[in-house]
C-alpha cells in the first residue's frame, strides 16, 4: 500500500504544481470570459513562452525568475498582435470560425517551433534546481515552492487589476455586455485584443515558472493544454476563483493519479474528470464571475 507520507508528498507536490496550472488557466478563463472563445492555441502559446524563457536563460544567461517580467511583456505583445492581426480579423465573429482559427494558430506555432528548434527536449540548469527544504516530514522542491508563491501573487495582482483599475472594469463591462459597453464609449475590439494579450501574458509568467522543473519541446503545449481546459471547465468557464481552485484541484488529481494508477495510466484521471464535468456539470463548480 501507499504510505501516508508518500500520499502527503503527492498531495503537496500536486498543490504546488497546481499553482502554476492556475496561472495558465487564469489566462484561458479570462479569454473565455471576455471573448467567449475557447483558445485552442493556449498550449502552443505556453510552449512559445517556455521557449522564450529558455532562450533568455541559456543564451542571455538570465535567471528564469528574472526573465519572467520580460516574458510577460513579450507574450502580451504577441497575444495582442495575434488577436488584432489574425484571430479577430479573420473569424468575422463567427464561433465556429474562431474555434478553427485558434486551432490554425496552434498548428502554425507548434510546427514553427519544430522547424526552429527541432523536436529535441531541452532543460535549463539552475543552482537551486534540486534544492529542497524540509517541512515536517516532507521535502519540498525549492523551485516549485517559489513558482507556487509567484503564481499565487500574480493571480492576486491580476484579480486586483480587474477589480480596481478602470481598464479592468472596462474589460469586465465588455465581458458582461459588449453592446452596453459600446454605448458608454468603450471600444470592444480594443478590449478583446487587450484581454487576449493579458491572457497570453499569464502564459509568459507560467512559462518561466515551469522552466526550472520542466522540460521544453515543441510538443510541450499538448501536455498542458488539456489540463488547462479541464481546470477552466471544472472551475466554471470565465470564473477567476474557479480557475485558481480548479488549478489546485487538478494539480492534486494529477499527482495522486500518477501515484495510484502509475506513470502511463495516471493522466487518464484528468481526462475523465474533464469529460465527467462537461457531461454532468458543464457550468463548473463556480458560476462565471460576471
Amino acid at each position, binding site marked *: 500500500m501507499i504510505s501516508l507520507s508518500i500520499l502527503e508528498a503527492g498531495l503537496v507536490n500536486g498543490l504546488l504544481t497546481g499553482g502554476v496550472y492556475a496561472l495558465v488557466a487564469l489566462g484561458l478563463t479570462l479569454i473565455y470570459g471576455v471573448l467567449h472563445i475557447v483558445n485552442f492555441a493556449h498550449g502552443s502559446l505556453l510552449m512559445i513562452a517556455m521557449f522564450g524563457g529558455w532562450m533568455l536563460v541559456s543564451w542571455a544567461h538570465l535567471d528564469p525568475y528574472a526573465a519572467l517580467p520580460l516574458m510577460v511583456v513579450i507574450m502580451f505583445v504577441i497575444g495582442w498582435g495575434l488577436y488584432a492581426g489574425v484571430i479577430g480579423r479573420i473569424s468575422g465573429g463567427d464561433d465556429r470560425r474562431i474555434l478553427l482559427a485558434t*486551432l490554425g494558430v496552434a498548428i502554425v506555432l*507548434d*510546427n514553427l517551433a519544430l522547424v526552429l528548434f527541432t523536436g529535441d527536449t531541452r532543460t535549463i540548469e539552475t543552482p537551486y534546481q534540486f534544492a529542497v527544504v524540509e517541512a515536517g516530514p516532507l521535502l519540498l522542491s525549492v523551485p516549485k515552492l517559489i513558482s507556487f508563491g509567484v503564481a499565487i501573487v500574480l493571480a492576486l495582482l491580476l484579480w486586483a487589476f480587474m477589480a480596481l483599475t478602470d481598464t479592468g472594469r472596462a474589460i469586465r463591462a465588455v465581458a458582461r455586455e459588449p453592446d452596453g459597453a459600446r454605448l458608454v464609449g468603450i471600444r470592444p475590439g480594443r478590449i478583446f485584443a487587450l484581454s487576449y494579450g493579458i491572457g497570453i501574458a499569464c502564459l509568459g509568467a507560467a512559462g518561466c515558472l515551469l522552466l526550472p522543473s520542466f522540460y521544453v519541446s515543441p510538443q510541450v503545449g499538448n501536455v498542458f493544454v488539456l489540463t488547462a481546459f479541464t481546470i477552466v471547465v471544472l472551475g466554471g468557464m470565465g470564473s477567476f476563483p474557479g480557475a485558481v481552485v480548479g488549478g489546485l484541484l487538478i494539480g492534486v488529481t494529477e499527482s495522486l493519479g500518477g501515484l495510484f494508477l502509475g506513470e*502511463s495510466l495516471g*493522466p*487518464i484521471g484528468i481526462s475523465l474528470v474533464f469529460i465527467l464535468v462537461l457531461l454532468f456539470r458543464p457550468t463548473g463548480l463556480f458560476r462565471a464571475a460576471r
Partner: protein
Amino acid sequence: MLRYWPILAVVAALLPFASSSQFLVNLAMLTAFSALLGQGWNIACGFGGLTSFGHAVFFGIGAYAVAIMQTRFGINPWLGLPAAAILGAAAGAVLGAAAFRAGLRGSYFALVTLAFAEVFRILANSLDITKGGLGILIPLHPSLPNFQFADRRGAYALVLVLLAVAMGIAAWLRRSRFGARLVAVRENEDAAAALGIPLVRTKTQALALSGAVTATAGVLYAQMFLYVDPNIAFGAERSVEMLLVAMIGGAGTVWGPVLGAIVLHLIQDTARMLIDTPGFAPMLYGAILLAIIAFLPNGIAGLRLPRRRSAREEVRRA
C-alpha cells in the same frame, strides 16, 4: 470544362493502375486515403456542423480492432472490416448520445471529443490487450484473403472502393431527407427543433455514421502499414489531419475532402523538395487553414458554387 471535372478526377484516380511507378501509386494511395479520412470527418462535422477535434478516436478504434482481432483471436481482417465499422458507429453513438444529451455544442463539443480521444490514447498506452506503448505488429502475410497486398495497386484499389462508398454516403446526405435535416440542424438548432427535427437523435446518428466510415479508414491503415501504436491511432495529429483535409477542400461537400487531400499532398511533397525539415509542411497546412477560414469559409469546393448558382438562375430567367 468545369462540369466534367468529376469524370476527370475518376480518370486521374485510375491512371496509376496503368503505371508501374510505385511512387505514383503510393502518392495516389496516400492521397485517396487522406480523402477517405477527411470524408469520415466531413459526414458529421461538415454536414452536421459538429466540430470534432478528436476524430482520431474512431480511426484508432478501427485500427486497433482489426489488429487485435487478427493477432489475438485469429479473426480474418475481412471480417474485421465490418466489425470495426460497427464498433466505430457504436463509439459515435455513445459519444454523441452523452455529449448531445448534455447539450454540448461548439467549443464544448470540440473539447469533449479531444478528451475522449485522449482517454483512448492513454488506455491504449497502458493496457495489455493493446500492448501498451509498444504497439501491435501485424505479421506480414501478403495475400488477398489476408487483406494484405504485395502490390501497392491492390491496396490502392481498396482505398478507392472505400472512398467511393464514403463519397456515396456524402452524396446521399446531399439528396436525402436525413441529410437535409442534418444540414438544418447545422444551420440553426432552434429553428430545426421548431420544425420537428429531433436534435440529439439526428446529431447522434450523424456521428455514428461518421464514426463507422472513419473506423474503416483505421482498418485500412492497419492493413497497409501492419503496425498500430497509441499515437498513430489516437494522436491529435490524426484528428487534425482529417479536419484539415475537409476544411481546406470544403466542409459539407461531396468532393471537398478529395480536393483537400490533393492540395495537402501536393503541398507536402513540394514542401519536402524545397525544405526538408520536419514541421515545415504542417506549418503551411496551418497557415492555409487560416487563409481558408479568412477568405474561403466553404473551402476550395466553395469556389465553384457561386458560378453554378448564377448559371442556374440565368436559365430560370431566360
